């Protein structure tokens, strides 16, 4: 089963909308699973798209690009993986074999786009100096239009040429390699979690790890349940911290008042 021209256009458009939103309105840029599911919906297999998106969502946990740093583009990987998996009929592993590397390659495009943006910014500033404000405000959004190409172009290339590449790879992949890929898929979220923990105030609140772990490992509680428990703990902590702040502020005020009165007495 191949892709029709209409499907190629729709999937590429999905990639464009994804990247546009991720960098401007920032609604669904982190919802990798949504893009797997939407790609599935376009190709008539919502469920498989959802499951592939879910797998990639779990892989992406804890991996964040902060302060403009570049990182693997998981939603792009989800769009490609779902498309390849559904159209080739070879399942998730085949899709991800193409989707993940391309998502990683996307990082290089990111660098290129940011360099183009430098040129756009300089041009806009020159217009400002010349007091051509209309030209300035028209120049800046060029960046907004160009930026989403960083996802659209890799997706287009991958879905048009991906299937034959997948066939070639699958034909020569040994058994242990596919098993190893699946094992790695199970282990890789650990890297993201470890990274997350580095950012967290573990010295102060690390013991809550035990509560979450026990709830799920021993009691088999789903994550949503643990999140609700965590919300209760968070509310409690917030209330006690903010009341402590108030008390401290009040006592320092009182001390201030007392010393002033003392001064007057003397």
């Amino acid at each position, binding site marked *: 089963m191949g892709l029709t021209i209409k499907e190629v256009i729709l999937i590429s458009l999905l990639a464009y909308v994804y990247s546009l939103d991720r*960098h*401007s309105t*920032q*609604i669904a840029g982190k*919802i990798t*699973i*949504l893009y797997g*599911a939407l790609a599935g919906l376009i190709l008539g297999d*919502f*469920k498989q798209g*959802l*499951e592939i998106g*879910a797998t990639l*969502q*779990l892989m992406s*946990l804890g991996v*964040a690009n902060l*302060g*403009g740093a570049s990182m693997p583009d998981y939603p792009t990987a989800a769009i490609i993986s779902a498309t390849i998996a559904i159209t080739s009929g070879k399942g998730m592993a085949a899709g991800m074999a193409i989707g993940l590397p391309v998502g990683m390659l996307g990082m290089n495009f990111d660098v290129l786009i940011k360099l183009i*943006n*430098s040129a756009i*910014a300089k041009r806009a500033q020159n217009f*400002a100096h010349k007091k051509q*404000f209309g030209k*300035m405000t028209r120049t800046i959004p060029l960046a*907004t239009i160009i*930026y989403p190409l960083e996802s659209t172009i890799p997706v287009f290339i991958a879905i048009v040429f991906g299937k034959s590449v997948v066939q070639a790879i699958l034909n020569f992949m040994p058994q242990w390699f596919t*098993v*190893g*890929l699946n094992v*790695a898929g*199970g*282990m890789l979220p*650990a*890297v993201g*979690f*470890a*990274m*997350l*923990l*580095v*950012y*967290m105030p*573990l010295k102060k*609140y*690390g013991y809550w*790890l*035990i509560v*979450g772990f026990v709830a*799920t490992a021993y009691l088999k509680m789903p*994550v*949503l349940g643990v*999140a609700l428990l*965590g919300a209760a*703990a*968070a509310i409690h*902590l*917030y209330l006690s*911290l*903010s009341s402590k702040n108030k008390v401290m502020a009040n006592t320092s005020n009182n001390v201030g008042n007392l010393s002033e009165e003392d001064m007057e007495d003397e």
Partner: protein
Amino acid sequence: MSDHKLTKKDILRTALRHYLGVTTFNYDTGIAPTIVWELFPALRKIYANDDDLVLSLDNHFRYYNCNPWLSPLITGATLAMEEKDGVKSIEAVQNLKTGLMGPLSGIGDTIIWVMMPTIFGAIAGSMGKKGNPLGMWLFLAVFLICFFLRPYLYFVGYQTGTNLIAKLGQKLDAFTDAVSVLGIMVIGSIVSSTVNVQTGWAFQTGGVKITLQSILDQICPSLLPAILVAVLYYMLKKKVKMATLILAVIVIAMLGAAIGLFKA
């Protein structure tokens, strides 16, 4: 008051124009072009004189990079300053921008780009793997609500003006700590539910077949995932690069699969 040149509509317009977001990000000036673009109509109203306008724009063309969700607090405040004092405020505007962009990014990035996607991503991912899209819609709904609430921060920034730092300070600390506890608990949970390490080896003792996995599960369920995360955590603390660790995990998984120690 005659010095109020901006209406509510102007602020809202600026806030919506801020949705140009990080598409203009570049290595020289960060997201400065976005700030220039969003502020331009308001600044045009404030500065009747073209030369003053260029001075102000030039200032906003300087490097600026802040979490785009919280940035409106800063530029809302600086807009109020420029409205009140004009070009005399430019230095103070620049100081406020560079002074606050770091701390606000720190808090915003941690909560918005790390905690929220981790918590809702874990829920959406674990439900989605079983074919249930409910968690995904929940994830989307939360971010959609935020999308509609975010312009409000521009008004907060505009109204608090220079008092911003004092007003935010202590509350934000308590809030960050509280959210951290929620995040840490969820990580504890998803280490068990999401990281998957299964051993394949089995032993024969007196005709009874015992698998390595069943022994491990008796010691503690999800023992290997917990150990894996702990080891990776200490490696990261020792400044080992993330890319190195990802590669190491893949190699170990491949080797383990080849000798049958791990199974999918």
